[in-house]
């Protein structure tokens, strides 16, 4: 019923806006020639513009304002009661770079770890994804079956998959250490030693991310006409030359957007870190920028600080993914 009520309210607001637009566009200026061609498009686009304004533009502007405000657990009541946000200038932006958003690790430490996290994951996703896609593309029989099996990690709910992996990395009873013991190797404390914690998170995220890249690349490979390869073979081109001169250039339109998306998703991936390191508190050995941001907002209630932190993260991502 709550959802129905919410839907009804949204529809009501949209309907009201459309009515207002209708009255303004068709009755207030009925004779204006210049507006005639825009009437219907404006009415059609209005719901989307309204939704984008409410869901993206307003929150973004509010976030910017919050970053310069003085909002935390102790001052939030002043804002709720009197609408007073305060003004802190650039204090929180300076704090982002000079203090720890968590207990000990600095912003620069988190940034370095996030870069390593993104690069390692992306290289593995693209590398393994492309290799598997090439293998699947060559398969004459059972391609559907293998594709289904290989996509399981991606199709599985991430929470279930990550928590299962957390169990497999249990220092004493997990499969990974049991395997190491079987081969006479020393066990690793995957849960509380700084580097192994981060490595285990990377391994899980690599496992989770390969199927997406594989499917995207496979789609790209299947769209390359066979005749190009046949012509290249007749001309005596080796498999490597075919790959370099035909496959890679023609895959580029698929690779570029998927790598861009992969960069943003990996950079912003909070789920794996949050679930692998323990949801309630946990340790900070694997935290990256976004998970540290989440903790600063929701564990430490530093709203203005976390808003400034979010703006900094946004600027970094904007810089990394800026076209050209």
């Amino acid at each position, binding site marked *: 019923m709550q959802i129905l009520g919410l839907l009804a309210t949204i529809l*009501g607001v949209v309907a009201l806006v459309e009515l207002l637009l209708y009255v303004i566009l068709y009755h207030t200026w009925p004779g204006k020639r210049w507006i005639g061609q825009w*009437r219907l498009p404006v009415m059609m686009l209005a719901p989307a513009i309204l939704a984008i304004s409410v869901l993206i533009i307003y929150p973004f502007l509010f976030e910017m304002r919050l970053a310069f405000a003085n909002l935390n657990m102790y001052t*939030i009541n002043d804002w709720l009661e009197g609408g007073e946000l305060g003004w802190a200038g650039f204090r929180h932006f300076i704090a982002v770079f000079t*203090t720890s958003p968590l*207990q000990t690790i600095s912003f620069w430490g988190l940034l370095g770890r996030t870069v390593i996290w993104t690069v390692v994951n992306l290289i593995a996703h693209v590398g393994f994804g492309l290799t598997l896609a090439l293998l699947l593309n060559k398969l004459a029989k059972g391609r559907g079956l293998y594709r289904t099996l290989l996509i399981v990690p991606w199709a599985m709910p991430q929470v279930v998959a990550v928590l299962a992996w957390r169990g497999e990395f249990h220092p004493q009873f997990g499969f990974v250490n049991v395997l190491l013991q079987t081969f006479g190797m020393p066990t690793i404390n995957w849960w509380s030693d700084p580097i192994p914690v981060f490595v285990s998170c990377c391994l899980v995220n690599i496992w989770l991310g390969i199927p997406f890249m594989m499917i995207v690349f496979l789609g790209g490979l299947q769209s390359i006409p066979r005749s190009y390869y046949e012509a290249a073979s007749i001309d005596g081109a080796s498999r490597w030359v075919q790959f370099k001169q035909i496959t890679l250039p023609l895959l580029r339109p698929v690779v570029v957007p998927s790598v861009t998306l992969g960069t943003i998703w990996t950079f912003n991936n909070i789920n794996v870190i949050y679930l692998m390191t323990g949801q309630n508190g946990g340790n900070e050995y694997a935290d990256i920028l976004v998970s540290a941001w989440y903790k600063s907002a*929701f564990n430490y209630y530093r709203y203005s600080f976390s808003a400034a932190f979010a703006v900094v993260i946004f600027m970094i991502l904007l810089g990394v993914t800026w076209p050209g």
Partner: protein
Amino acid sequence: MMNSTNKPRVSGVGATLARLCVVLFAASMSSSLLGAGVVLTMWDNEREDIQKVLDDVLDRFEKENPGVKVKTSHYKTEDLRSQFQTAAMGGGGADIVLAPNDFGGPFSVMGIIQPVDTWAKMDRFAPTVVEAVSDSKNKSWGVPISRGNHLMLFINGSIVKKAPQTIEELIATAKKHTDAKQNRYGFAYNLNEPFWFVAFLGAYGQRPLVARAPQLGGDTMVQALELVKKLKFDDKVVPADCDYACADTLFTEGKAAMIINGDWAVQQYREKFKENLVIAPLPKLASTGKHMAPMISGKYLFFNKRVTGVKLEAAKKLTEYLVSKPIQEELVRRTQRLPAIKELNNSPIIAADPVLAATDKAMANGQPMPLDAEMRVVWDAIRPQLQNVMAGRAETKVAAATMQKDAETKIKEMKQ
């Protein structure tokens, strides 16, 4: 480009769209006017078995109070905290939140819940549960419906016949039943979690947060860290790296003779071990003569600040129903949790049940969990240093000093 011949058709589409909007707007208005009576929304973080008990009780409440409906939603603990916090700040969120006391600290400071002492008659509840939900100005922020949430010593009676009275006895008993090669341990607990560690700290007479100031440095903290380190590295009576799930699994599978766990596990262990389950208070430390002191709180009803008027009256009615003697007795029987009201302190329901009586007895040495929002920082300051000590990466003195410094810094930063 649109030409003039299109104009009448376009105008017609616009008018049709406008008519549709009139209908939609009217429909939305009528739907919002539907549904008279008071609807209370309640969010909780209860387990599935407890949810069923609550749903039964709430169904009966609705039948006895035809004008009031209670809609429940269930969340994981951390989700409940963040969801309510975010929703309430935006003027929404549940009317009532059923949660442990530590939710009340930040929520009260943020002003998203309301105090209850003006109407809730707090003197009818056990003093420890009232203290755990009262701030430094003695203002109470929630109504308790159960007390407990405390750690106890659970013993598999088929392995260990007599409950250890001191930590030294516990170690000696655990040694007898430990054979790491056979994956058998005398004792298991959540080694790296501060909630368990502060119980050990309590045996040295130290509380982690006093008057909103962290008390994590100093000799007593060092001694407590040395003790837990010794259990792992010298006595070797606990599994080397054990979290909650690991300790719980070892105990339920009969591979750990004893476990420190909370009252939330009573029902599960009772069903598993039946008459072989023994519950004892956490032992004392012979050298200090003090018992380990688990944190005590309970489950509380917190009320959203925007709940007023008729809704608040309905919420009060629901509260009175839940803390009434018959419902409290039913909750004790069906949830195995101790009652919040003093009237049931010596109730035969508790006295006649050895497990419940032992659970009650185990509370005696506890310390009320501070309500203050700073407690979150204290937990987070202890955790990494405790992990460092338990992994052999840090000296206990350094760890104690670091956790005190980290907690002080973070509390200062939280206020900026």
